[in-house]
C-alpha cells in the first residue's frame, strides 16, 4: 500500500468531515426551539429571549458563526463553550470520551464473545440442533429493544440480587473491581444485541468459506478438522467478520446512546442527546463531528486491515 493512497484517503476523510460540519451547521438551527428559550423556560419574554440570544452570539449571521467555530477547531483545537452552561466543550469531551470508548470496546468484546462461537458452531453443522438453537437465540437478541433489556438487567442484578450497581461510571482510580462492576450491565446490554446481529453474519461468512474448494481440498488431503478450520477457514472468514464489525460499529454506537441514557453513563452519547434536547448547538455540532470522525476512521481502518488479512489485496 502506497503512501499516496494513504494520503488520498486522509484527504477524503477531511473533506467528508468538512462537509458534515457545514451540513449540521446549516440544518440544526432549522429545528424549532432555541437554547435561549430552553434556559428561560415558560417564563420567557421576547425581550429576555433576544437578550440571551445576543449573549450567546446567535444573532450573528450563520456564516460568521460557522467561521468562528471552524477557526476555533482548526487553529486552537477548541470546540467552544456550551451555550447552556458555558463550560468548555473540549473539557466535557475529554471527560466523556474515555467512558464511551470503554463502553464501546466492552460491548464489542461481549458481542464478539457471543457472535464468534455461536456463528462457528452453527456453521459447522448447518441445519442441526445447535444451529437451530443459535438461530432462535440470535433472533430473540435482535428483537429485544435495548432500553428494555437495560432496565430488565438493572431490575434483576441491581434491585433483586444487589450484585451490581444500577447506574453510573466509576473511574479506574476508584479501583479495578468497582470500575468493572459498573461496566458489566451497560456493556452487556449493548453487547448482547450487537452480538446477536453479528452471529448471523459470522455464520454466513463461515458457511461460505466452508463451501469453498480449497477447504474441500484441505479435507481431502486428510488434514484434521481443527487444522482446516484454524488455518484456512478462519483466516479467510476474518475479512468478512472484520467488515461486519466495521458495519456494526454504527449500530453499536447508536445503541450506546440509549444505553448511556438508561444507565446514566457519562459518555458522549448522553452528551449528544442532552445537547439535542437543550438545543445546545455547539455541543451538538461537536458531537456530530466526533461521531462522523469515528465512523470515518473505523471505515478507514477496516479497509486498511484487509491488506493485512489478505495478501492478494493491494491498494495503489
Amino acid at each position, binding site marked *: 500500500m502506497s503512501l499516496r493512497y494513504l494520503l488520498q484517503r486522509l484527504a477524503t476523510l477531511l473533506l467528508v468531515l468538512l462537509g458534515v460540519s457545514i451540513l449540521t451547521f446549516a440544518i440544526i438551527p432549522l429545528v424549532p426551539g432555541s437554547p435561549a428559550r430552553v*434556559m*428561560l423556560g*415558560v417564563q420567557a419574554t421576547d425581550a429576555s429571549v433576544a437578550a440571551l440570544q445576543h449573549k450567546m452570539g446567535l444573532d450573528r449571521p450563520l456564516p460568521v458563526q460557522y467561521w468562528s467555530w471552524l477557526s476555533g477547531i482548526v487553529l486552537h483545537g477548541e470546540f467552544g463553550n456550551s451555550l*447552556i*452552561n*458555558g463550560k468548555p466543550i473540549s473539557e466535557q469531551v475529554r471527560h466523556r470520551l474515555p467512558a464511551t470508548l470503554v463502553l464501546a470496546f466492552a460491548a464489542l468484546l461481549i458481542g464478539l464473545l457471543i457472535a464468534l462461537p455461536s456463528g462457528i458452531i452453527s456453521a459447522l453443522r448447518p441445519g442441526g440442533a445447535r444451529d437451530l438453537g443459535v438461530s432462535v437465540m440470535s433472533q430473540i437478541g435482535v428483537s429485544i429493544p435495548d432500553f428494555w433489556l437495560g432496565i430488565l438487567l*438493572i431490575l434483576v442484578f441491581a434491585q433483586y440480587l444487589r450484585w451490581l*450497581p*444500577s447506574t453510573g461510571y466509576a473511574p479506574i482510580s476508584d479501583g479495578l473491581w468497582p470500575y468493572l462492576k459498573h461496566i458489566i450491565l451497560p456493556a452487556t446490554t449493548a453487547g448482547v444485541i450487537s452480538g446477536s446481529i453479528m452471529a448471523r453474519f459470522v455464520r454466513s461468512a463461515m458457511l461460505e468459506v466452508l463451501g469453498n474448494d480449497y477447504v474441500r481440498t484441505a479435507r481431502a488431503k486428510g488434514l484434521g478438522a481443527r487444522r482446516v478450520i484454524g488455518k484456512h477457514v478462519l483466516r479467510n472468514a476474518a475479512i468478512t467478520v472484520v467488515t461486519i464489525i466495521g458495519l456494526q460499529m454504527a449500530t453499536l454506537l447508536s445503541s450506546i446512546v440509549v444505553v448511556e441514557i438508561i444507565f446514566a453513563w457519562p459518555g458522549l452519547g448522553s452528551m449528544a442527546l442532552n445537547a439535542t434536547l437543550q438545543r445546545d448547538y455547539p455541543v451538538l455540532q461537536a458531537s456530530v463531528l466526533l461521531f462522523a470522525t469515528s465512523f470515518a476512521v473505523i471505515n478507514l481502518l477496516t479497509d486498511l486491515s484487509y491488506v493485512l488479512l489478505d495478501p492478494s489485496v493491494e491498494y495503489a
Partner: protein
Amino acid sequence: MKRLMLILALFATLAALSLGFAQKSGGTLIAAWAQDPVGLDPQIASARSSLEVLENVVDKLVALDPQGKLVPSLATSWEVSSDGLTWTFHLRHDVKFSNGRPMTAQDVVYTYTRMLDPATGSGQKYLLGSTQTVTAPDPYTVEFHLKTPEVALPAHLAAQASVGIIAKESVDNGTINTQPIGTGPFMIADYEPGNQVVLKKNPYYWQKGLPYLDEVDIKIITDESVRQTSLISGDVDWAISVPPQSLSQLQNDPNIVVDKTTAGAYWYIGVNLKHKPLDDVRVRQAISYAINRKDITDAMTFGTGVPTQDPIPSSSAWAFNYAPYSYDPAKAKQLLTEAGYPDGFRMQIMPTTQYPESVRGAQVIQQELGQVGIKVTIKNLEWAQWLQEEGKGNYDTYVCSWNGLVDPYDFFYAQQRTGQVFNFTGYSNPKVDALLDQGNSAKGFDQRKAIYQQANKLIVDDAPYIYLYNPANIQAYQSYVKGYAARTDQNIDFVKTWLDK
C-alpha cells in the same frame, strides 16, 4: 439507695435524650435528580432542576418556614414606607460568601441591579415586581424603590433561588453559570453537565453548626424506574421523585421513607383566547363542564393529586375552594349550542413529552371532549419545541403547570392580569385587573383574602385557564436520612439533613 437510683435515672434519661437528639455531623448524601440543571445562573436558569440545586447554594433575604410563613434569613427585619413605595431590609452582620468574603448591602444591590438589567436577560425579574432601583444607604441596609405599592414583595424575595444573593466575583470571572458563589449552606465543588453536581459544605456558613452534611453528590438519573431501583438497591440515599405508580411498593419498604406533602402548584389547560371559537366564554365553560377532573387527575397522578376548579390548594390559608362547575356533558353541549356550535368544532391540545403526565391527561381530555362533539387532535412536542410554540402562541390549548407558588399574587398576577409577562392566553378583564392591583397594595390578611376571592371567582368563571388539579410533592429516601422534609413551596432544603448511620 433511693438517691443513687434517682441519680442513675436522671443520667439514663439525659443519655436517652441526647441519643435521640444527636445529629451526626459529616457524611455524604447521594441524591438522585430527575433532570440535568439547565445552567446554574440563579437569575437566568428557570428549570426546576437548576433551582433545586441553587436553593442550597444561595440564600435569600427572607425565607419560608415549612408551614409557609415568612421568616428572617439574610435580612433580620424589614419595613415599608407609609406610601408603600420603599421597602427597607436590615441585613445580618455575620454573613460570608463561600469564598470567605463578608456579604454587605452592596452585594444585594449588585444582585438585584443585575437582575433588573435588560442585558442580563433574566426571566425572573417579575419577582421584583415594580422595583425600579435598589440602593444601600449603609453597609447593612438595603432599600427597594418601587413604582407602585407591592405588599407581597417580601414573599417574592423568599420565593426561590432566583432571588438569592450572589457574589460579583462569579460574574466577573465568567463562572456564574457553572459555579455561582452564594452564602448558602453548600457550595458547588464540581458540575459535570448531564452527569452530576457535587456540593460541598460551605465552611463560612452563617448558621453555626450547619450544615451537618459534608457533601451532597447529586446524580442525574433521568429514567424514573432506574431512579427508583437505585433508591431501593441503596445506590442512592435520596430521590427527587419516584413514579407515582410505585408509591405503595415504596411505602411498604421498611428501609424507605416516602415524604408526601401538598405542593403550592397547579396543573391546568391554558386556552388561547386569540383563536376562535375559544374567544367565546361559553365555549371555554363548555370545556370545563365536559371534562371529568377526577378521571384526569387519576390518569395524570395515579391518585396522588387533588382535583380542583380553582388554583389555590385547599391546604393553603388562602384557599377559596370555589367550584361552580361539575362533570356535566349535557350542560356542555347546551353551552356549545348557545355559542353557535351545536355540532362541536375542531381543536388542538398541546402536551409535552417532558412531562408524561401531560400526555396522559391530554388523551383523557381528548376522549371526554369528543363526547360533546369537540374533535381534539393532540400535538405532543418535546420540551424545546413546546416552549417555542407556546412562546409564539401557536396552539389552541396546552397542558402545563405552575410551581413553587405561595402568595396569592403568585397564583394570579403574572398570568391573568392584562399585559403581564406570563399572560400567554391573552386574557383581559378590567375588573380582574383592578382587583389584582388592589391585592398588591391591600394590607392585612383578611382584606387581601376578600379581594383575591373576588378575583378568583371572576377568573374561574371566565376560564382562560381551566384548572385541573393540585399535585402532591413526593420525595423518597432511605430511612437513615434525617432532618429532611418535603416542602409545600417545592424547594429542596438540605441544610439540616444528617445521616443516621
